[in-house]
């Protein structure tokens, strides 16, 4: 177990290093000159050169990358070119909102996805099953931008049940969580359905039925706990999908998380922020996968860590 963990940690670090190198190189290769952006259109060539020197952007690529890494190790992500604030501070101030949204989204996708999958499996082959599966298909394929605006229009503008975007109370959280959750719910519904169908075919379920147990007891006591485990183990992997989703969903709902920060930084070619958010996202994804792997054997004893 310890050896496995050690190996996985080293792997994770290498992945993060790779991500940082690739992102840094891509941003370096952009034809856009960050110094020109800082200096503004009225700057003299001398001003431009001064700033280039101060930021160390006159150095060769490998030196710049090395400097970045050295600072990174001490937790310093540099300062935004446009906002001039510490990138760490900008990200830290926005992380809680993104985490909250992620929790909300996970709750939504589990609640919706699992119940849809469960009902579909029980009503297998009926019109209910087909309707739910079509719905899950729509959920998986609908662009989040459209889903978000649709939910906003119906539940916030027309019905006034929830505020139109913003951040602060639980009521603000519902629609963005739902938007993010619907995508995952579609996947979970399909996985839950097939997992449940699988379990319902097992001998122990047949035995339970033969013993004359009530249908509800069979499903909730015997089948569900076994069917749900492999599905739950997917949550760690979901984080990667969420990281992509928050950029869109946070923009639609005015949710002050790191997705919005990333989107604004990309538009302004604010390289230190783009680097910082990419690294934090990569870290979250690596961590999620790692946790999913570590938890798996506890959920399903057949899996062993090697």
């Amino acid at each position, binding site marked *: 177990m310890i050896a496995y963990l050690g190996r996985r940690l080293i792997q994770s670090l290498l992945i993060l290093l790779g991500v940082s190198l690739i992102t840094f190189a891509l941003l370096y290769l*952009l*034809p*856009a*000159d960050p110094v*020109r*952006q*800082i*200096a*503004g*259109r*009225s*700057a*003299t*060539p*001398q*001003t*431009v050169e*001064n*700033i280039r020197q*101060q930021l160390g952007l006159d150095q060769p690529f490998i030196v710049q990358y090395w400097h970045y890494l050295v600072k990174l190790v001490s937790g310093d992500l540099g*300062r935004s070119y*446009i*906002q*001039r*604030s*510490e990138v760490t*501070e*900008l990200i830290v*101030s*926005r992380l809680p*909102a993104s985490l909250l949204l992620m929790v909300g989204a996970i709750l939504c996708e589990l609640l919706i996805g699992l119940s849809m999958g469960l009902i579909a499996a029980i009503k297998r082959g009926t019109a209910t099953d087909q309707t739910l599966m079509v719905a899950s298909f729509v959920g998986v394929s609908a662009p989040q931008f459209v889903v978000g*605006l649709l939910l*906003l*229009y119906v539940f*916030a*503008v027309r019905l*006034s049940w929830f505020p*139109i*975007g*913003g*951040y602060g109370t639980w009521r603000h959280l519902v629609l963005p969580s739902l938007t993010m959750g619907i995508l995952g719910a579609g996947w979970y519904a399909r996985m839950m359905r097939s997992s449940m169908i699988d379990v319902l075919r097992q001998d122990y379920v047949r035995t339970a039925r033969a013993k004359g147990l009530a249908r509800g007891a069979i499903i909730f006591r015997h089948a569900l706990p076994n069917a749900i485990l492999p599905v739950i183990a997917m949550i760690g992997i979901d984080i990667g999908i969420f990281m992509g989703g928050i950029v869109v969903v*946070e*923009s*639609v*709902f*005015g*949710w*002050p*998380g790191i997705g*919005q*920060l990333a989107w*604004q930084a990309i*538009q*302004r*070619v604010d390289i230190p922020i783009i680097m910082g958010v990419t690294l934090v996202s990569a870290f979250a994804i690596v961590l999620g996968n790692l946790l999913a792997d570590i938890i798996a054997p506890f959920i399903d004893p057949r899996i062993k860590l090697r």
Partner: protein
Amino acid sequence: MTMKKFLASTVAASALALMLGMTSARAEDAMDPNAKQGGEIIATYKDDVTTLDPAIGYDWQNWSMIKSLFDGLMDYEPGTTNLKPDLAESYEISPDGKTFTFKLRHGVKFHNGREMTADDVKYSLDRVTNPKTQSPGAGFFGSIKGYDDVAAGKAETLSGVTVVDPYTVKFELTRPDATFLHVMAINFSHVVPKEEVEKYGADFGKHPVGTGAFKLAEWTLGQRIVFERNPDYWHKGLPHLDKITFEVGQEPIVALLRLQKGEIDLPLDGIPPAKFQEVMADPEQKARVVEGGQLHTGYVTMNTTMAPFDNVKVRQAVNMALNKARIIQIINGRAVPANQPLPPSMPGYDKEYKGYPYDVAKAKALLAEAGHPDGFETQLFAMNTDPNPRIAQAIQQDLAAIGIKASIQSLAQANVIAAGGDKAGAPMIWSGGMGWIADFPDPSNFYGPILGCAGAVPGGWNWSWYCNKDLDAKAAEADSIVDPAKSGERSKMWSDIYAKIMADAPWAPVFNEQRFTMKSARMGGADNLYVDPVHVPINYDNVYVKDVQ
């Protein structure tokens, strides 16, 4: 030798207004008699505000916010482009136009309670020009004596700025500079207190302390910025509002929905293009839309150093090929056709100038004369955000009609700017999304960086690489006319310069964008405050709400 001095003081304003040919009515006099005191409003923006440091902030979103937190020696009458003294009570200009002496108001206090003096003015200018500050506006102060040494890091202080006494500051310039009063009104010259700048260092932009009408009460990153009325503001009676909450991170479409529900007062990113016709078709909503000009021109540059655009006939042919009315339809008619570099609300704009007509036959003939009877192939660069690719396609079709086959290179903004700043980078660029918006309302501001030789350098903004030494000399001559009484003459000189540029046709001017600001029914104040040409997008200090007592 007698020193003839030009004096503009608020005390003798009316008498001098005639003599100097400039309006310097006191802003106090111009205040709206219907204005009500108090009340709170909510404004929204899509993007978080980058910084509120006057030395750094340089986008249309923070521009007016900074103007409400800080003040400069000069400002403009609300809603107009007319200069007026602000922190300065009066100023004198030496006859040679090289020395400007400002008398400061007494009793002006920073938000931290300390009185603002001439030392702060000097400090603020030393700071903005210091390369360590990395100010995008440092270049505006190039005419001040000692600028080069400070810019080169050889000096810490501008030798041309002298504190005569606590309420008098003197500027010596290396050349007469007619734009200097405007330079003293732009945000980069706004006055900051040294102790607060030193306290917060690079984070001063998040903790701004100025002398302005509002002070910063709260800034929650990514969520909201709250401005509170500065009760000690030197300009009695301003601001009208007690509080402005800027909610950020709101998509324009969401902001519009919230406005329609009465949740917010000002969706400051404007009306989303997809909703524009719907809003304008509804009389109730349309009544709350204010339309105004802005100091903006959208244009197509042609690289005058690249064949075949090195031939003036080809450039003139392109000018005649563009159907500007049709291009404007693409943006829902939110612009007026342009025939010269300057926008109509800019001094120096020539109403008589007719420009190149839309004439396909004539354009073809010019191309034939230039040796391209069958046209040629070229590239048109454009920014990749809506509506620019669609506009580029319209231009492409217009060019195809005279035989020019232009392929569209639709790229991110920074990449287009990089291509334009590379001499061999881009034959043609549609400027949309990057079009020139004036820093200050003076005709010279449309010349130097974008049409003058100084901008035709690698990384510069003169994407036509047009460099006419004669016009550079004429521009310098015009800018040396500092006497306000001769401002008419100076404007005329600038009109001539732009007419000569148009004869050489390095650009095809396409349109001047109009601004459309939407507001809630409770917002009051003259329309021009909501499309203020200088306090862009709106003048926060002077607007008010009607539903307070």
